[in-house]
C-alpha cells in the first residue's frame, strides 16, 4: 500500500524525513530540502551579494550536493554569488586521485572554475609519505590540520570572501559529541556555528548544517548526481568513526537525536570565568593560531626533524621524547 505525501499534493511518498517523520513525495522532498538550506543561508546571513565563494570540494556526496544546491539557489533567489570549487589533493593513492576525477566532473557539470592544491606543493609531504613515516595511528590529525590550512591558502589564492564546506547535520552532531568527550570547550562553542570568521582568517560557512546525511544521499540519488563513495584508505583508525557509529545507533532509536544534539550544542555556554585560548597569529607562517606556533607548523617540524610525534597527544610525552633525543645527542658528542 503506497503512503501518500504528507503535503497532501496527492502523490505517493518516497521518503520518510528523519527530522520530522513526514512522508514526502519526490517533488515535495526537493522543495523542503532546498528551502531548508536556503533558510539556513538566509537566517545565518552566510553570504552577501557579490561574494566570491569557494566550495570545499572533495568529490564526495556532501560537497557534490552542496555545489549543485548552491548553484540552484544562487539562481533561484538571486544571491549574486560567484562560485568556485576548491579541492585539496592530500596525496592518498587510490582515494584522492580517484575522487579528484569526480571534482573535475563537477567543474564541467556546474560550470564553476576549479582550483586544486596539493599537500606536496604546500608542505613537501603527501599523506602517503606521512603515513610511511608515522604509521596508521594519528595520521588523521595531520590530514585534518593540514587540510584546514590548505583550504585557507587556496581561498587566498582564489581571492574569495568565504569558504563553504559540506559539513552536514550528522557531521556537526558527531563533532559536538567528540568535543564533549574531549572536554574541548573552545571548539565546542565554535563547532555548531553556521558561520565563523575571525581577524586574519577567512570566513567559513556550513550551509548544510541542518541537513541530514540520509536526505543528502537520497537527494543525490533521486537527482542522479554523481559522487565518489570510497572510504579513505587510512580512515578506519580515526576517533571520529566511534562517534559516528554511536550517533547512527542513536538515530535508529530516535531520528531527531541528530538535530537535538546540534541544538544542545548551540545552547551550551561557557561561564565567563572559564579561560579560553587566545587567538593570535603563528610566529612562523602567520596563519591564525591559538599558540605561539600553529599546529600545522609543529606537525611539519616534527616530520622534517624525524620526530613525527611532535605535536600529537600530550605535550609532556613530547618533552620526554625530546629530552631522550637530546640525551642521545649528548652521548654521541662524547
Amino acid at each position, binding site marked *: 500500500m503506497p503512503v501518500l505525501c504528507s503535503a497532501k499534493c496527492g502523490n505517493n511518498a518516497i521518503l520518510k524525513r528523519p527530522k520530522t517523520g513526514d512522508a514526502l513525495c519526490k517533488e515535495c522532498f526537493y522543495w523542503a530540502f532546498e528551502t531548508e538550506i536556503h533558510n539556513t543561508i538566509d537566517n545565518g546571513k552566510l553570504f552577501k551579494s557579490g561574494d566570491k565563494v569557494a566550495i570545499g570540494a572533495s568529490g564526495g556526496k556532501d560537497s557534490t550536493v552542496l555545489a549543485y544546491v548552491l548553484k540552484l539557489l544562487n539562481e533561484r533567489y538571486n544571491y549574486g554569488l560567484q562560485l568556485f570549487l576548491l579541492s585539496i589533493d592530500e596525496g592518498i593513492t587510490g582515494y584522492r586521485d580517484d575522487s579528484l576525477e569526480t571534482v573535475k566532473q563537477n567543474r564541467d557539470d556546474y560550470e564553476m572554475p576549479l582550483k586544486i592544491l596539493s599537500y606536496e606543493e604546500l608542505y613537501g609531504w603527501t599523506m602517503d609519505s606521512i603515513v610511511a613515516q608515522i604509521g596508521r595511528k594519528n595520521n588523521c590529525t595531520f590530514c585534518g590540520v593540514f587540510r584546514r590550512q590548505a583550504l585557507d591558502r587556496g581561498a587566498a589564492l582564489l581571492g574569495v570572501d568565504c569558504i563553504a564546506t559540506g559539513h552536514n547535520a550528522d557531521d556537526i552532531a558527531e563533532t559536538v559529541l567528540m568535543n564533549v568527550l574531549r572536554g574541548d570547550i573552545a571548539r565546542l562553542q565554535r563547532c555548531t556555528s553556521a558561520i565563523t570568521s575571525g581577524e586574519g582568517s577567512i570566513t567559513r560557512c556550513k550551509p548544510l548544517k541542518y541537513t541530514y546525511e540520509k536526505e543528502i*544521499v537520497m537527494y543525490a540519488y533521486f537527482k542522479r548526481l554523481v559522487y565518489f563513495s570510497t572510504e579513505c584508505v587510512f580512515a578506519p583508525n580515526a576517533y571520529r568513526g566511534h562517534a559516528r557509529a554511536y550517533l547512527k545507533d542513536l538515530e535508529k532509536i530516535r531520528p531527531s537525536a541528530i538535530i537535538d544534539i546540534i541544538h544542545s550544542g548551540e545552547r551550551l555556554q561557557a561561564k565567563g570565568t572559564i579561560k579560553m585560548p587566545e587567538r593570535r597569529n603563528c610566529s612562523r607562517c602567520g596563519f591564525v593560531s591559538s599558540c605561539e606556533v600553529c599546529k600545522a607548523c609543529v606537525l611539519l617540524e616534527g616530520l622534517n626533524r624525524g620526530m613525527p610525534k611532535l605535536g600529537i597527544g600530550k605535550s609532556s610525552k613530547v618533552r620526554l621524547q625530546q629530552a631522550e633525543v637530546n640525551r642521545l645527542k649528548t652521548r654521541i658528542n662524547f
Partner: protein
Amino acid sequence: MSSGDDGLHVIIEFGGGAELLFDKQKRHVVNLPADREWTLKLLLFWIRDNLLKERPELFLQGDTVRPGILVLVNDADWELLGQGEYRLQKGDTILFISTLHGG
C-alpha cells in the same frame, strides 16, 4: 539458488559504497526459492548467505541493516513500507545505499 519459473524474481542493487562488500557488483538479478513468503528481513539474511563477499558486520547489525545503510524498494524508502516486514513482490527492485563512505 533454485531455478525455474516458480521462484520469486527480484533485482537487488547496491550503491554509495555498499557495493564494495559485494565484489563491486552493483546489480544482481536473482530468483528466490518459492518455498516461503519472502519478507525484506528474510531477504537480508539471504543476501548475507548468498551475495555478501566480506565483513558481514558492515552490512547487517542484529536482524536489520547496519545503521547508515538506506533501503529503497522500487525507489521508495523502506521506512514507509514496514521495513523488514515488507512482503516482496515479483519484479521488485531493492536498493541498498551506504551513507557511510566518502567525505
